[in-house]
């Protein structure tokens, strides 16, 4: 039985708290009920049509302090800071009176995983609106107690005060206890609420703890008498292999080792220290079975072989016929690479198992998913599992469905000890990897001579999702999804599958423009599906100085995309290419985004810069090298991520705030997407070579130059 509202209130409400519960509906599900005129085209095509109720809990305690519980976690995106701010401002309380409990399955509602840049958007606006209603409610309640009309009272600084006599005052903690269920908080309520939330630039709530090294991440948590545990890691895709032989005796003889044992295809080791466990796994020297599957050495071949049509996701007009009759018609294939999320804190969990009960402290984006995993792994009821989400040292998708909690729980059960399970980079890159999948995209377009897109077909070979293929107004289109039987394990990663599709579409757009002799920016403008891309393109062109002729071997490229329904973005990149070394350097980046209401410009700007640097990494060097059997990427030295010296000057504009057209739509992933394509387009403009495969490593660039 999952924890329900009643048991929760019994558990925490006690008799001294005043409890409010409410739900926030997800705006993406109701956009068509609350249409916003601008960008209606995007909504019609891309709204994810679901409607979810998130149940939230807020308590007012007798001492006037407030506790709010949300099942989301803070992954460095500042959720805790934003929510604390919102509530302290919404209820007019000093920040120290507001306590947040995030991601503890025993005392927080299941309000979905923290992913897809939606935490602030959904939970945030729900709380803001709820605070407004709670203020009204408390005024009514006080009016009843005082026997006066609510019109005579006002809510001020955590108390209800008579308008004409400030000595008549009831602090919120003094109001009688009870439970109030507020109605569902409707979408758009945030912005339309009487007093829009304004961020006061409050510093991060965890700031002092972070800079002094005292913030307790999962691996820092010490439950007392804890050992370490780990599993053997194979370079082969794990579903293709198993341990054939291993030296269990030698492993068990390593000092400090508690237990070494075979588990399924792999083997586990538990020891008194991290080092003893690693030594045990080394001594174990497992021999892994070589996969029997015949392999194709190149990723494209693996992805295409045996691929089957999964579904046609979009079909309009008669694209095949129109392609045939188009005066200009171009067919291309684009391929993106396998990539890895690489949070600086590897996947980590600490587990304690007693009989049929388990407690797991975990670095997770989705504590309730972790609870299901642990319950299944240990074959115990879900309500016997408590997951405590700890501050997360980066996640980027990989900790949505992290196996670390259930693996730790298994290790704890097998040894009867508390076990800390800290993934090594090897295990993160190989043994338990869930990569961003490589994608093959076949794209064909037909254009008129004066540069109007007429028809397009796209076939995407990818298992998960797909991105925005329809930034352009094309009357005849077909988009199909094919399965990808590549045996490497897939998972989510920041930017989702939109990056791959955008790379194909936006590279192809430049190729078409070039074939027609039209400037790529102008070509885009002639074919936009959504007019609001126009100002974004103008903004980035202005920022990057699009009109000037760049120096030799420099190039400027642009790209646009949309994400998550109503987030629009344009990015321009200037690169230089060293023809001798093949090294691409991004000289400048400019981004313009239309993402609705901006809550905290500073945080947003910082996050956006970070996201654009992700795009830079994906475009230029990030790659997990795999074939149909194994991965060749073992550690951080094999996987380059952006570093200080890669950072170009960046300029960013948010146009949406000026149009004041709605609620915050989130911007965590969007900037990654067009940045990748803008860089690829800039490289093509710099050296006149079009690359169809990412990343643009020096070797690939040199090869392209040689062949050109």
């Amino acid at each position, binding site marked *: 039985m999952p924890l329900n509202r009643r048991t929760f209130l019994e558990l925490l409400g006690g008799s001294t708290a005043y409890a409010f519960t409410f739900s926030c509906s997800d705006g993406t599900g109701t956009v068509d009920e609350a249409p916003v005129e601008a960008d209606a085209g995007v909504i019609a095509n891309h709204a994810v049509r679901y409607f979810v109720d998130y149940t939230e809990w807020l308590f007012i305690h007798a001492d006037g302090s407030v506790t709010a519980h949300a099942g989301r976690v803070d992954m460095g995106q500042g959720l805790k800071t934003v929510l604390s701010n919102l509530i302290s401002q919404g209820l007019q309380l000093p920040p120290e009176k507001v306590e947040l409990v995030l991601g503890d399955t025993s005392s927080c509602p299941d309000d979905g995983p923290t992913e897809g840049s939606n935490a602030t958007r959904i939970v945030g606006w729900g709380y803001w609106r709820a605070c407004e209603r709670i203020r009204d409610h408390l005024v009514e309640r006080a009016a009843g107690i005082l026997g006066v009309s609510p019109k005579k009272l006002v809510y001020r600084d955590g108390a209800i005060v008579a308008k004409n006599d400030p000595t008549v005052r009831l602090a919120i903690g003094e109001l009688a206890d009870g439970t109030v269920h507020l109605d569902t908080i409707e979408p758009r309520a945030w912005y339309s609420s009487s007093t829009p939330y304004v961020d006061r630039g409050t510093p991060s709530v965890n700031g002092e703890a972070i*800079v002094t090294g005292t*913030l307790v991440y999962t691996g820092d948590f010490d439950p007392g008498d804890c050992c370490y545990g780990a599993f053997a890691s194979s370079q082969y895709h794990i579903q293709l292999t198993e341990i054939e032989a291993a030296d269990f005796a030698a492993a068990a003889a390593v000092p400090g080792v508690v237990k070494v044992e075979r588990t399924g295809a792999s083997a586990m080791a538990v020891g008194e220290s991290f080092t003893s466990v690693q030594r045990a796994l080394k001594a174990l020297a497992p021999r892994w079975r070589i996969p029997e599957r015949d392999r194709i050495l190149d990723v494209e071949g693996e992805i295409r072989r045996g691929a089957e049509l999964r579904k046609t996701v979009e079909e309009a007009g008669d694209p095949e016929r129109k392609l045939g009759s188009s005066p200009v018609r171009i067919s291309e294939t684009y391929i993106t690479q396998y990539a890895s999320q690489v949070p*600086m804190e*590897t996947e980590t969990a600490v587990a304690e198992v007693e009989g049929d009960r388990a407690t797991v402290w975990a670095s997770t984006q989705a504590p309730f998913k972790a609870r299901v995993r642990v319950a299944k792994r240990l074959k115990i009821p879900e309500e016997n599992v408590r997951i405590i989400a700890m501050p997360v*040292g980066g996640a980027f998708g990989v900790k949505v469905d992290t196996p670390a909690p259930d693996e730790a729980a298994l290790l704890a059960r097998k040894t009867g000890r508390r076990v800390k399970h800290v993934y090594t980079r090897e295990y993160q890159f190989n043994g338990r990897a869930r990569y961003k999948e490589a994608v093959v995209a076949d794209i064909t377009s037909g254009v008129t001579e004066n540069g109007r897109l007429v028809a397009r077909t796209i076939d995407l070979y990818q298992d998960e999702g797909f991105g925005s293929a329809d930034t352009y107004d094309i009357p005849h289109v077909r988009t199909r999804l094919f399965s990808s039987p590549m045996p490497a394990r897939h998972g989510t990663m920041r930017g989702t599958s939109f990056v791959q599709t955008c790379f194909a579409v936006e590279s192809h757009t430049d190729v078409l423009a070039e074939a027609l002799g039209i400037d790529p920016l102008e070509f885009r403008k002639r074919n936009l599906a959504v007019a609001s891309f126009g100002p974004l393109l103008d903004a980035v062109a202005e920022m990057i100085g699009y009109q000037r002729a760049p120096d030799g071997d420099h190039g400027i490229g642009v790209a646009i995309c949309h994400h998550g329904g109503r987030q629009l973005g344009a990015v321009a990149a200037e690169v230089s290419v060293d023809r001798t070394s093949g090294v691409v350097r991004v000289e400048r980046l400019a981004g313009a985004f239309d993402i609705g209401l901006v809550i905290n410009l500073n945080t947003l700007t910082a996050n956006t810069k970070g996201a654009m640097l992700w795009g830079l990494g994906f475009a230029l060097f990030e790659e997990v090298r795999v074939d149909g059997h194994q991965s060749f990427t073992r550690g951080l030295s094999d996987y380059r991520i952006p570093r200080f010296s890669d950072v170009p000057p960046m300029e960013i504009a948010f146009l949406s705030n000026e149009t004041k057209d709605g609620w915050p739509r989130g911007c965590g992933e969007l900037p990654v997407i067009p940045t990748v394509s803008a860089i690829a387009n800039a490289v093509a403009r710099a050296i006149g070579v079009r690359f169809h495969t990412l990343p643009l490593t020096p070797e690939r660039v040199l090869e392209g130059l040689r062949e050109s």
Partner: protein
Amino acid sequence: MARAEKITLKVNGEPHSLTIDPGEPLLWVLRDQLKLTGTKFGCGEGECGACSVLINGEVFRSCMVTVGELAADDQIVTIEGLGRPGNLSELQRAFVDHTAFGCGYCTPGMIVTAEALLRSNPHPSRDEIVSAMDDNLCRCASYPAIVEAVASVAGGVKRED
């Protein structure tokens, strides 16, 4: 496999006597024996800088230094030795003021590395900051704010409380 030995480590000014395998990396001794968990495990391969500490004023990656290599009078300083909550160092304050972090996991290593830079070069240029810190990785890509934070201290901007 080496046997446990008596080893004395001087960390943040305090001597600690431990009976321990001299082959044990300093990182895990700091974290598990001395409970100084501000020094983070990011890779264990010397590739990320999350585990950076000062030894006699120079930056070292504690995952790559075994305790057996250290002398009893080596001065080891961890992030905890630079300032405490409520009593931040100037550099720590600058990181807070510039929100020079996302998740914060790389931050102790960043601050320790920047501390060493500022001790040897109190007025580095932005380029010098970038090259001194280039081997410290931040997946949240808070790089621009980190450079600003370090530069604000380097520029002699005094803190005003």
